């Protein structure tokens, strides 16, 4: 399709997106206030510490290691599930998505309980990979399913081997999706505290936490967080480069080009099943089994009422957070999916700040904003849900954007020519066709919010306990046996959106057949 130059951005949409992005950028604003409020000396002092750069290097190194390892897991898994006849493909698909439900700190603790010698960079990289590889697996499998298989056949006919043909065509087509997933993983690793703390890796976020914790030295902590933002910008720009302009609308040309499963030998099939089983074992079975072992060692009786309240609170607050996140993401996604220019790129980048920053920075920035500007909602249910929206907006943004991108813009124009106003034309066509994709983004926010801790501790209403805070209440006091039921409940509750997410993708890809592309990627 010959691409025409982008029309001028509708003003209302632009300002709507700008407003949503500035809400997401509140933490950045806070950092700027804190950093500029201090003398240049203290900034220079932080910057001149050798340790600042050493830990920044470790953080980046860890981020790249986890990204590479996740890709190394995601590609074979996605290939097996799209091209090899394995038994129960749908169940294996769901099993490959479910690790999203395991909080990284719980996974780390569960592994540590069984293998106390685990520590350091590689142990952290392993656990972070096991909990975050679905972020690349999902967009890659979606891309492999929708990619034009005829290209691969052309490449074969031009003398390529199956592998080089794959690399030259379907793999190339999947790189934007893989890059987007990698960005989410990278940002997640940069801001992770739980795993690196347990495995004793000196990363940048750990230094930020110690600085906040030990000295309430707001300036150096803010300067450090500022550097983290810079690291995040590096990742974001790498991703944008990889994505390029390739993700514009791709028409789905129906059956002719869809992928036929390759005939596979028995050896390949058994190796595939072994791989999938091994993955499910390390990413799901080991941590949960370890938790069950730990639970049997606990002594204090479980208070079912407390657990039920925590489950309900967790579900409701993360759900409302997801709804707000989707609401904020819609105008930004609508803008960036149709109008790609410098301004829309800036708006998009701003909205990513939440994901890169440690929860403690987001928490303090919302404390600062709320108590000074909206004291009425301070430490209210709404503020906590709002914090989740700010933190995890990019996850919903990516999903909504790619759903919009895969909807042909001409449908909107047809609807307008048939008498619909711009908004209702959008709702009837792009909005309606992207519903599943948008919902998938919401599920992802919900699922991540359930596991969030530092901002939850700071912003929840006094006395409001979620599964994550109850878990913290117990682990903080080394009452691990008593903590386990909460860890298991958290995994079980988070597994629901993870499960729905995998269903949403299966539904769109197999039954609806037409344009909506679901991608959880950014």
């Amino acid at each position, binding site marked *: 399709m010959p691409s025409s130059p982008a029309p001028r951005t509708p003003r209302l949409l632009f300002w709507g997106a700008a407003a949503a992005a500035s809400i997401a950028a509140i933490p950045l604003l806070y950092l700027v206030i804190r950093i500029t409020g201090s003398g240049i000396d203290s900034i220079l002092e932080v910057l001149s510490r050798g340790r600042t750069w050493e830990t920044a290097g470790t953080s980046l190194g860890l981020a790249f290691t986890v990204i590479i390892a996740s890709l190394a897991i995601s590609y074979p898994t996605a290939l097996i599930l799209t091209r090899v006849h394995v038994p129960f493909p749908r169940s294996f698909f769901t099993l490959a998505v479910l690790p999203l439900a395991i909080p990284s700190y719980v996974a780390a603790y569960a592994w540590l309980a069984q293998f106390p010698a685990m520590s350091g960079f590689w142990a952290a990289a392993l656990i972070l990979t096991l909990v975050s590889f679905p972020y690349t697996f999902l967009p890659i499998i979606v891309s492999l399913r929708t990619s034009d298989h005829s290209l691969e056949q052309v490449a074969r006919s031009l003398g390529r081997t199956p592998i080089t043909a794959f690399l030259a065509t379907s793999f190339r087509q999947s790189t934007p999706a893989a890059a987007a997933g990698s960005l989410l993983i990278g940002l997640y690793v940069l801001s992770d505290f739980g795993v690196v703390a347990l495995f004793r890796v000196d990363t940048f976020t750990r230094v930020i936490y110690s600085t906040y914790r030990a000295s309430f030295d707001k300036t150096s902590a803010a300067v450090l967080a500022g550097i983290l933002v810079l690291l995040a910008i590096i990742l974001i720009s790498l991703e944008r480069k990889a994505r390029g302009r390739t993700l514009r609308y791709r028409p789905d040309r129906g059956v002719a080009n869809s992928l036929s499963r390759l005939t596979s030998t028995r050896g390949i099939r058994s190796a595939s099943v072994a791989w999938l089983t091994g993955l499910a074992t390390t990413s799901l079975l080991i941590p949960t089994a370890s938790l069950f072992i730990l639970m049997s060692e606990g002594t204090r009786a479980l208070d079912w009422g407390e657990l039920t309240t925590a489950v309900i609170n967790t579900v409701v607050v993360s759900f409302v957070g997801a709804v707000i996140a989707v609401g904020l993401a819609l105008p930004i996604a609508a803008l960036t999916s149709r109008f790609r220019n410098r301004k829309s790129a800036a708006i998009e980048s701003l909205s990513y700040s939440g994901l890169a920053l440690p929860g403690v920075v987001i928490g303090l920035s919302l404390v600062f904003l709320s108590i000074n500007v909206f004291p009425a909602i301070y430490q209210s249910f709404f503020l906590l849900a709002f914090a989740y929206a700010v933190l995890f907006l990019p996850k919903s943004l990516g999903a909504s954007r790619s759903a919009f991108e895969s909807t042909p813009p001409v449908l909107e124009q047809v609807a307008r020519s048939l008498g619909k106003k711009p908004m209702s034309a959008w709702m009837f066509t792009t909005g309606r066709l992207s519903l599943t994709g948008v919902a998938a983004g919401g599920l992802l926010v919900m699922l991540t919010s359930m596991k969030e801790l530092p901002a939850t501790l700071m912003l929840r209403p006094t*006395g409001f306990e979620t599964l994550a805070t109850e878990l913290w209440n117990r682990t903080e006091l080394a009452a691990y046996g008593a903590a386990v039921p909460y860890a298991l409940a958290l995994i079980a509750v988070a597994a629901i959106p993870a499960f729905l997410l995998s269903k949403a993708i299966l539904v769109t890809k197999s039954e609806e057949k037409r344009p909506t592309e679901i991608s959880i990627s950014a």
Partner: protein
Amino acid sequence: MFARKIALLTVVSVLTAPLLVACSSDSGSNGSSEEITLYSGRGEYLVGSLFDQFTEETGIKVNARYGGSAELAAQMLEEGDKSPAQVYLSQDSGALGTVEGILATLPTSIVNLIPESYRAANDTWIGVTGRARVIAYDSETVTEGEVPTSVFDLTDEKWRGQVGIAPANASFQSFITAMRIAEGEEATRNWLEDLVANDVQKYEKNGLILDAVDSGQVELGLINHYYWFRKAAEVGEDSMRAQISFADPKDPLSLINVSGVGLLKKSQENPNAIAFVKWLMSKETQEWFANTTYEYPLLPAAEAAEGLPALDSLLGPDIDLAQLSDLPATLKLLQDVGLI
């Protein structure tokens, strides 16, 4: 259809949300009625039932907000004078020291309840419980006699890679502050450098050090005494591979650190808040701490848990606890040697 289900779920949840919030949190605590808002650096799992008991006895409801002591302190500083907090209960004196500027002076009737050495010099906070620094050791590889009694033994080649510390933890930092005051800056710096050179193992928290010693990952660990007693109570004393040893009474290692409580400035005259602090310092509460958390009660009349050496016998280095809030220099030192 999937999307429709989601939409339905949205409607249902949004409708029920206010209901749930109302059940799970009682907001609107302005302190005017019979309630207080407490920022507690001590976990709910530990002290939640204690606060219930206070409400039962006095009819004053406690709106407790739990969090890390340091995070709560940072939060109160960010909140400034708009903070909803009335009382701040902290896990360690260091965090109390950093928020002294927003704390009220406590009534003399309260501060005089405990010895001078366990409270702030300017009476903005008092200690509630005491904890001794101890060395946890792996009883399968180390005998009690081999355990060092002085900090300076920890840098011995014999313990290379075998000492666990939690440098980001407030009690470790208090210990370093104490060491700086007792032994001097130079000696402390040298010691830290030696420690790093001796491949000291860093952990996030005391509890994790104890777990590491208990599973044989390191032979020695610097922790607070009650972690051991608490873990022993949870898993049974017999299954503890880690044992603890108290240091030489004059050594900085034997520092007694405290958890403490203070009132926010606007609650200086608040009778409920004052009643709460008084209640914390009552003999019953102090002994509850002694028997539940295995910490030392600071009220002279209250008795410590069985099996603990007397608080007097531990003495600790001869320093004023208030001096322990001189954290910035300690942090700078820890940053310089690369521990945090």
